[in-house]
Each structure stands twice: as C-alpha cells, then as structure tokens.
C-alpha cells in the first residue's frame, strides 16, 4: 500500500474527538506564536525568536502519537514541539521573557526550553545538536527495558550535520526506538534547501536500512497516522524510522527577518498561507465530515486565546530571577 492509501484507512479508524483535540493543540501553538511575535514587536521580549507558525501539524501530529513519558528533543524553532508535548503556555512565556517562573528559570530562553515532566529533553540552538541526545535517550530506554520512544525533531538544514548520520547508523544497527522527524520547510535560514542538499532526503535513511516515510506536513491527519505507525513499530522493538514532513514557515527565519523577498517570494508565502494552512485544512475537513461545527471551533478559539492572554499577563508580571541565580546550576 502507498503511504497515502495506508493513511486513508487509518484516518477513518481514529476517534473523532481526537481530531478536535488536535485542532486545539495546533491552535494553541498558532496563538502562542502570534503572541510571541507581538512581545517581540512591542520590545517586551529580549533577543530574537523563531516562530513555528505554519508547521503546527507536525509537532501536534507527532506528539499526539506519543505518551507523556516518551522523549522529544527540539530545535531553535521549538515552541511548537514543547507545547505539543504538554508544556504550559504561562511557563513558556515566562521563559521567553527571561523570568524566574519560566521552564528554565529564565536561564534558557526561547531556544532552550526543557521540561522533564513532559519528556522534553530540551530545545537546542545548535543545528542538529540534539541528534545524539535523542538517540541516546532511545538507547537508554532500550537498556533500561522501558518501552519509551524518543523523537528527534530537526529542520532539513540539519541534514548538513555529520553527527546525524553517525547516530542514525548506530540507531539502525542497534534497533533503537527513535524517530527522526525532518521538518522540511524548504529553507535553511535564508537559503533554499535545494541549494545545500544533494540527493533526496529519505534516501539518506535508506542508506542505513531504516524505515522511512514522507508526508504532507500541512495535513495533520497524515502526520498523525504515520507517526502512530512508526511509533508503534519502534515501541515494539522494530527499530528507528525517518519521517520527512514537507512544510513551510509562515513568518521569517526569526522575528526580525522582515524583508524576505530576496530569498522567497510573496506569492509563495501567500500560496502556503491561503491554501496550505494546517488549521484551515483540518477545520474544513472536520466540518465536511460532520465531526464538528463552527460553533465548537469558535469556542475553542475563544478559550485558547483567553488562556494565552492570561499566560502573557502572568509572564509580564512575573519577577526576573534573583541575581544569585547566575551561578546556580552550573554543577549538579
């Protein structure tokens, strides 16, 4: 069966309520990022941040297939992964603002959110930097005899990093329960990936004899059912997988990347935003299928927005770390 034929039959078997939940998860990420951008534009957030808007279906779809005790590692564009794995909006915003209440006591910031309670081993600002960590977590799960699975999220830019290939080789050789999720949003910063990447993406994993899949990363249904399949295999001891999700970021590389026409056209951006918005795609499908209606979706939006606003308020009012935090936690 092809990936999509397989998906179609699996989509039908998913509990309808689950789609509504996925919609809410994606919306949470979307609203979070909109607020984060606002915080940057109004000069309330220190530094820069990389928004995940447009790519929500991947984090939401993959994390929906995971248990709370499964592991993830994330990237510089990591808010979506952290939220989808169960992070709270208020503690996330507090971290973005460098406040003590944040997930990392304000010491990590946007690019380094880690949350042990939800299995999040940390976002990483070194491209490809978490490939070893995720693979090691999977190795550890195997050694400890748990049936946990690890997911390594990374952008297609990380395909340039040698570390990734070293650990993929070992993961395949030793059948580690790890899923490498490659989010191909077409750009490594300001350079189209075809200018930096030879061959095809999935062939890299084929070289290691690894299970692979490639999905439309804007369609959360496809992401979710494919992730389910790969996670189940890994959990059953059948080894790692490599999942390519084709996607697009709606904003710039980071919030300060405003004039983008020298590397991607307005038309291209418009096309993805108007025709390939993962939230719109799911909402329209759910309504067509009679899974839900606008009233329900509107209510979800009201709730999520209210939660996000309260979370921002909380973060803005939260205190900065006390100064003696600066040399705490250097050693355990």
């Amino acid at each position, binding site marked *: 069966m092809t990936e999509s034929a397989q998906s179609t039959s699996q989509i039908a078997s998913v509990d309808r309520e689950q789609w509504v939940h996925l919609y809410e998860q994606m919306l949470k990420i979307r609203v979070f990022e909109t607020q984060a951008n606002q915080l940057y534009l109004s000069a309330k957030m220190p530094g820069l941040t990389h928004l995940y808007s447009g790519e929500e279906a991947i984090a939401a779809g993959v994390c929906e297939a995971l248990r709370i005790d499964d592991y993830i590692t994330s990237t510089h564009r990591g808010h979506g992964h952290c939220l989808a794995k169960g992070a709270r909006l208020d503690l996330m915003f507090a971290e973005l603002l460098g406040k003590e209440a944040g997930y990392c006591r304000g010491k990590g910031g946007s690019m380094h959110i880690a949350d042990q309670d939800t299995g999040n081993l940390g976002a990483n600002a070194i491209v490809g930097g978490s490939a070893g960590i995720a693979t090691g977590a999977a190795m550890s799960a195997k050694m400890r005899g748990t049936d946990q699975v690890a997911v390594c999220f990374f952008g297609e830019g990380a395909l340039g990093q040698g570390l990734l290939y070293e650990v993929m080789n070992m993961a395949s050789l030793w059948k580690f329960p790890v899923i490498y999720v490659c989010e191909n949003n077409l750009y490594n910063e300001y350079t189209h990936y075809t200018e930096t990447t030879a061959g095809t993406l999935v062939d890299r994993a084929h070289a290691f004899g690894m299970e692979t899949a490639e999905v439309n990363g804007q369609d959360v249904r496809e992401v979710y059912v494919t992730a389910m399949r790969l996670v189940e295999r890994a959990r059953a001891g059948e080894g790692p997988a490599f999942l390519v999700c084709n996607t697009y970021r709606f904003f710039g590389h980071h919030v300060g990347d405003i004039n983008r026409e*020298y590397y991607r056209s307005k038309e291209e951006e418009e096309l993805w935003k108007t025709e390939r918005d993962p939230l719109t795609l799911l909402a329209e499908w759910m309504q067509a299928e009679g899974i839900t209606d606008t009233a329900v979706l509107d209510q979800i939006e009201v709730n999520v927005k209210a939660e996000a606003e309260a979370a921002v308020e909380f973060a803005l009012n939260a205190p900065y770390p006390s100064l003696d935090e*600066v040399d705490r936690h250097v050693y355990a």
Partner: protein
Amino acid sequence: MSTPNGTPREISWAQAINEALTEEMRRDERIFIIGEDIAEAGTPFKVLSGLVDEFGTERVIDSPISEPGITGIVVGAAMTGMRPVVDIMFGDFITLTMDQMVNQAAKTHYMSGGKLKVPMVMRTTLGATRRSAAQHSQSLHAWFSHVPGLKVVVPSNPYDAKGLLKTAIRDDNPVAFFEDKMLFQAKGNVPEGEYTIPFGVANILREGSDVTLVATSSMVQVAEQAAMMLEEIGLSAEVIDPRTMFPLDKATLIESARKTSRAIIIDEGYERYGVTAELAAVIADGAFYYLDAPVKRMGAMDVPIPFSPVLEDLTVPTPQTVLEAAKTLCGRV
C-alpha cells in the same frame, strides 16, 4: 606596517570587513569565502552584503550547515594553492570545527616538515549581551590560542579589523579571526585605500602611569570607559589592546606593567584557564619586581551565558566593575 594614504572616513565594522575582503579578493584570485548564508543573505549580520554581486557564487559560496565539512574543505583547498576564508556564523560553533582546526590545519605545516602550508582564515564571532543565550554568546578564542600552529586575531575597532583581516588573508598560516558581534554596526575612522596591520604588535590606546588595563576585543571599549572614569578620580590608566592573541606582543605588556606597577587583564572569554590567565602570567613573569599588586584578571563569569538579561549582564566585565577593581589595586577603597 604599510600606512594608509586615503582621506579619513567613518565606516562601520561590517563595512570595514567587507572592504578588506573586497580589496583582497580583487588583488588575489585564489581567495574565496565559504559559509552559511553568506552570498545573497550576506550573513545574518549583513557583514558580507554585496560581496557576491562582485565576485559571484563561485567565490562567495553558500554552504550547507556543515561546519566541520566546510572547515575541512578549506584546509584542503589552502594546502593545494587556494587562499580561502571560512565563515563560521557564531563563535560557539567553532567547537564543531575543532578536529579540522586543531589536528589538521594547525599541524600540517609542522608534520610535513615544512613542506605543506595552510593559508586559510576562519572568520567567526565572540561576545555576549545580545540575549542569545548559552549556545550563541560565548567567547571561545582561548581555545584556538592554546594550539601551536594557529594564529588568533581579536580586533577591537573597524580600523584594526580591516588592517588585521588583510594581514590574516596574506599570512601563510591558519588564522582564526574573532569579531565581536555587538560591534558590527560600530563606526570608526577607516581611511580609504590600502593598509595592513602586522600581527603581534599591541596598540597603546591611552597612556597612563597608575595602572595598566590590558583589554581584548569587546573589552577594549569597556577599559577605555573605565579609564575615563578613573581619570575623574585622579587615577591615570594606560589602555593596551594586544590585537592578536598569538603572536602576542609580550614586550609592550611587560613594559607598561613595569611603568605603572599595576595591571588588570580584561577579556570576555571565561575567566578560568583563559586569556586573562595567560596574559597575567606574562606580566607576572616579566614585571614581577616592578609590581605593587598582584595582576588582576577579569573575564566572563564561569557560567554558561544565561538568557535572562538581568543575569546575562552580570557575567561580563563592565566599566563599573573595572573601575572598582582598579581602585582596589591602587589602594583607593
């Protein structure tokens, strides 16, 4: 030192670097530059904007995100007749290039009994306080300074940046060139036209008699501000910028410390086992009998750079903390 002939102008650090590369690439066809997002994007800091328009994508090359790979390529190209420059976006990422720089580039000339050489430059950054958190804020220039076979340049102003980069490109050895990312937009006097600045010659930015402030890169302006504050309370500080970590102008540092009898070393790398330790040892060695106080070291606090602004600001020396240290050394507290 070849001297400038043009009329003085104010340009930014970024423009100075851009000019140095442009002039050198016009002069020598063997020079190319490779790095991530350096061509059309002109680097995320826009330092190389426009370079690709003149030299094309064959000499201004956008690479994959492969730091060890591009560094290795540059080492091999340098060994075989090219004079490449590799751009490593953030100094934190030099950790990825360590084998290529330390075990390959640095040792090739020696191991080959002088037969092979590696005329390459690595441009990269240092410096905190940009709210970029622990993996984008470090100053790791001490790492390369530790390794025989490498030269390390740490300019502190646009004029030096241009002259030193040209010298780096013309040098027959692997050179690591560290730029403070907070200074890219800083302006300074840079005359038009050709000039170079030799390695191993410190710059005495201000003469003084009570205390010597040896400062590197980002910390030079901190030392200069501290010197002005010291002047207001009647203390005369000499400010010296070594400009290159290796070769190091030991004589100028020692001579100054002998004259003032007190010295503070200020550098943005981690304090322990770092640049400040080395320079303090040089002074302690050479000026021991002339010193009235132990040499004081001021580096970045020995912690991963925190994100939160209130914490990050504590981790680097400031004019105020240098002032306090100088007062203590001079018995003014």
